[in-house]
């Protein structure tokens, strides 16, 4: 087995990206705690206790939830962690995102960047987790992704609340001249029951902030939780039902100009010839600015309103250079096929001895299949946008983004100023799904602001620009081979997955001077780390660079590995004449959390009971981001096509902090996965994306939406994520249901190429 040092030297790419970030930002103080970024921005009389809590004299309690709220309910969930220990009801706290700051680093975001499955608790796995978490801290990597926010914040945020409460009570004891032990807290006040006297938190806040926080705090026992473990009303719900201006696209500033971009439809291609004259003369147009960035080349348009900017963008006449990458679907498939045939790659799982296991396998015991999936766009409901103002050497940017500290860094580089001259305001996000971890929309706004004479510019992309300039979920191909034993169970499973490297592509955009090293574990994430006991089990990932920008799309590698792996498990079940649920029970017997979600979902759906004719079900299980999820999809044959009637989900996330939010996320994740599986694909012709808007890149509509039944379990030892885990099992459960209904084993997505959906 490799030593920790060796694993560190193998530089798993996510680590490489992080280290690259560190070199670039030049920050390397391992042990020094970060300064509290709230110190500099307190209102008159306001006191702060740590980076997460501010209290004003009028008892306004502000909690900083420094993760992007993109619908996953993180503002509510993080605030509840603080409120629980601070002993205040959730509706008493004001929740803010807070500034971009290294203090808000996300350790859990990188923790799982090593080669270990989530259930591996060995010393080495834990050591690497600690080391990668440390990298995140050192870099001050403030990011929202990888379903990591709660895992990162669970202790940190509760400790912040408890530490603040501790000094508040201490200050109250001094003020009232009584012992701390005689005081109790409730609803933002500290009471001395014996004398009937009480003070509010606000009344003692500044005195309390002067007291040194305790070296350690005792957190409440789970049994004493008042908020956690129960569904809370979301803190942002009222704003969202009244149309309040909370999104990036809603920013309005005095003297604001409006803009848009027209970037090369061939990635990284430059304009060969351009005629701006017609566009420049259009009414309302202020200025047209050439843009050259690591994200691509094109033009930015500054205008007096968004409509004028859109019109002018269309009027720009330009010929773009040719594509320097495989320019159509057939050429891209060939790259993937060649990669699979190359015999290269790195195996992140290799149990037993695959070569021997297949050497003498009789033909009738072999199961073989090839799978392929297309590129996908994120298609967030809110098109990409950001607003920026460059004035007196300072860049202020309002950006619906998932990576504030990286946004600050790349915008400072683009404009050519020091990082501390950039202020990032993170607004609410109208969907993120990984797309808003990119910096293009922020950088373009920053570059246009530089040309706007000190006025702010709100730069909104058209939907067409958004679909055609995404960082796509990569296309991927998989080759699967199994050898079955006498009992029908797999004795050996050999998997090869080829896909462009998400991390390699991300580095090209963010740190173009650094060349990627080491394997990208996202390529096989969802295949190399599943809780199946198969004696000979090998999973090899092959990075197949295509040159089309790819990025993090809800559940990343799990989105296609889940589809491949779980459809192939269904093929194994069919070939071995084993019931698909029974197959899982047998192969996952060593992981009780897995077996329990399988059993639960089977019981909920009454799996195995006969169905009326014209109906069938499919099953899938995935472990992603620490969430153990089993899904069953039921489809019905109707005169209008296949209809997804019902979906059952059982999920184990360890500790379920807010069951209402978790249920919503599981359904949301499944709808996202079903949308893609049913009908989405991004195709390339002449180097350009062919789709452009919701008429040709649609998602599930309400009339197609099945009924859902969800169960949340808490058997797993480690806490898992929530935001992405509903997605990976959705596509395979649907494809397996289609097989059960029609006998058609569909191994490529979207399924709509072979069957029609109602």
């Amino acid at each position, binding site marked *: 087995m490799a030593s920790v040092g060796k694993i560190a030297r193998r530089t798993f790419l996510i680590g490489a990206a992080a280290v690259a970030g560190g070199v670039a930002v030049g920050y390397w103080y391992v042990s020094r705690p970060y300064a509290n970024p709230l110190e500099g921005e307190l209102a008159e009389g306001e006191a702060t206790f740590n980076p997460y809590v501010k209290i004003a004299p009028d008892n306004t309690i502000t909690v900083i939830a420094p993760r992007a*709220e*993109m*619908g*996953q*309910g993180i503002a509510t969930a993080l605030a509840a962690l603080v409120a629980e220990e601070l002993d205040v009801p959730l509706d008493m706290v004001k929740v803010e995102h807070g500034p971009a700051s290294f203090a808000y680093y996300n350790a859990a975001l990188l923790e799982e960047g090593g080669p270990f499955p989530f259930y591996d608790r060995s010393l080495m796995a834990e050591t690497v987790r600690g080391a990668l978490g440390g990298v995140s801290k050192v870099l001050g990597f403030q990011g929202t992704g990888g379903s990591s926010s709660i895992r990162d914040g669970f202790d940190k945020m509760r400790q912040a609340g408890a530490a603040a409460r501790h000094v508040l009570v201490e200050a109250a004891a001094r003020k009232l001249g009584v012992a701390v032990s005689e005081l109790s807290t409730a609803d933002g006040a500290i009471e001395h029951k014996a004398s009937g006297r009480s003070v509010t938190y606000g009344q003692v806040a500044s005195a309390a902030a002067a007291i040194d926080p305790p070296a350690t705090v005792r957190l409440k026992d789970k049994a004493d939780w008042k908020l956690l473990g129960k*569904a809370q*009303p*979301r803190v*942002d*719900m009222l*704003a*969202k*039902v*009244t*149309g309040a*201006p909370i*999104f990036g*696209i*809603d920013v*309005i500033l005095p003297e604001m100009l*409006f803009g848009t971009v027209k970037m090369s439809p061939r990635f990284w291609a430059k304009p060969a010839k351009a005629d701006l004259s017609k566009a420049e003369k259009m*009414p*309302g147009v202020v200025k047209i600015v050439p843009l050259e960035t690591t994200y691509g080349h094109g033009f930015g348009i500054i205008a007096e*309103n*968004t*409509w*004028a900017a*859109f019109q002018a963008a269309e009027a720009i006449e330009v010929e773009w250079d040719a594509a320097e990458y495989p320019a159509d679907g057939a050429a891209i498939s060939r790259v993937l096929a060649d990669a699979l045939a190359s015999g290269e790659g790195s195996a992140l799982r290799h149990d037993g001895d695959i070569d021997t296991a297949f050497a003498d396998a009789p033909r009738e015991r072999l199961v073989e299949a090839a799978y392929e999936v297309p590129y996908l766009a994120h298609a*967030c*409901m*809110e*098109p990409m946008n950001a607003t920026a103002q460059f004035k007196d050497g300072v860049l202020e940017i309002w950006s619906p983004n998932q990576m504030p500290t990286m946004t600050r860094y790349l915008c400072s580089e683009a404009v050519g100023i020091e990082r501390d001259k950039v202020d990032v305001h993170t607004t*609410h*996000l*109208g*969907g*993120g*799904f990984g797309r808003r971890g990119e910096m293009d929309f922020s950088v373009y706004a920053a570059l246009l602001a530089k040309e706007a004479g000190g006025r702010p510019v709100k730069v*909104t992309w*058209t*939907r067409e620009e958004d679909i055609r300039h995404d960082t796509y979920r990569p296309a991927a191909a998989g080759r699967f081979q199994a050898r079955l034993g006498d009992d029908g169970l797999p004795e050996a499973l050999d998997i090869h997955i080829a896909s462009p490297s998400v991390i390699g592509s991300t580095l090209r955009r963010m740190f173009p001077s650094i060349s990627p090293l080491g394997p990208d574990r996202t390529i096989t994430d969802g295949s190399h780390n599943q809780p199946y006991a198969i004696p000979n089990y090998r999973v090899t990932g092959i990075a197949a660079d295509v040159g089309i920008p790819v990025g993090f799309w809800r559940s990343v590698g799990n989105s296609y590995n889940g589809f491949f792996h779980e459809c192939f498990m269904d093929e194994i079940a069919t070939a071995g004449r084993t019931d698909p649920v029974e197959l899982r029970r047998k192969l996952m017997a060593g992981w009780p959390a897995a077996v329990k979600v399988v059993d639960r979902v089977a019981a909920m759906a009454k799996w195995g009971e006969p169905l009326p004719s014209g109906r069938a079900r499919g099953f899938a299980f995935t472990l992603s981001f620490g969430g153990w999820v089993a899904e069953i999809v039921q489809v019905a044959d109707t005169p209008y096509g296949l209809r997804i009637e019902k979906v059952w989900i059982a999920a184990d996330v360890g500790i379920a902090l807010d069951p*209402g939010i978790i249920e*919503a996320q599981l*359904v*949301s*994740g*499944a*709808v*996202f996965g079903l*949308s893609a599986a049913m009908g989405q694909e991004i195709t390339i012709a002449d180097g350009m994306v062919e789709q452009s*808007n*919701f*008429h040709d890149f*649609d*998602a*599930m509509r*309400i*009339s197609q*939406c099945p*009924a859902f039944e969800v169960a949340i379990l808490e058997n797993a030892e480690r806490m898992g994520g929530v935001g992405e885990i509903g997605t990976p099992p959705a596509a395979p459960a649907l494809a397996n249901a289609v097989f059960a209904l029609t006998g058609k084993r569909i191994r490529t997505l979207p399924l709509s190429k072979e069957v029609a959906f109602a």
Partner: protein
Amino acid sequence: MRLIVDGKSIEFEADPEMPLLWALRDLAGKTGPKFGCGIAACGACTVHIGGEAVRSCTLPVGQVEGEVTTIEGLAAGGKLHPVQQAWLDEQVAQCGYCQAGQIMSAAALLEANPDPTDQDIDEAMNGNLCRCGTYPRIRAAIKKAAALKTAGI
């Protein structure tokens, strides 16, 4: 150009070809209606004109006839509209970006059909895309809103 928006008369200068959505958002400062597609394919920009649900992204502002109501003007007299109240009770919104449009479509549906069936709901709401997949809670909230409305709450 003059329009009545959310009960107030507003005056602005605009190319009559400019879609109502951009006149509302950029010229009138009404950011409640959202931009999602610009081709009447997602419903994020839905407003009411004379009580009817209309996609404001494809309607030239010069052709608007009648009073415009946006999500910002839906609550009357400081009280949430029953649809908004139901949305709050059912905790519908995730990212929330589509919800202004969803709520406006649902409010128009209930105006025309106080007791919609599941199929009525599917038909009336099919033009409103939600990338977060909040549809099951939207269905529940519309039923709830219908009950609230009938009860006069």
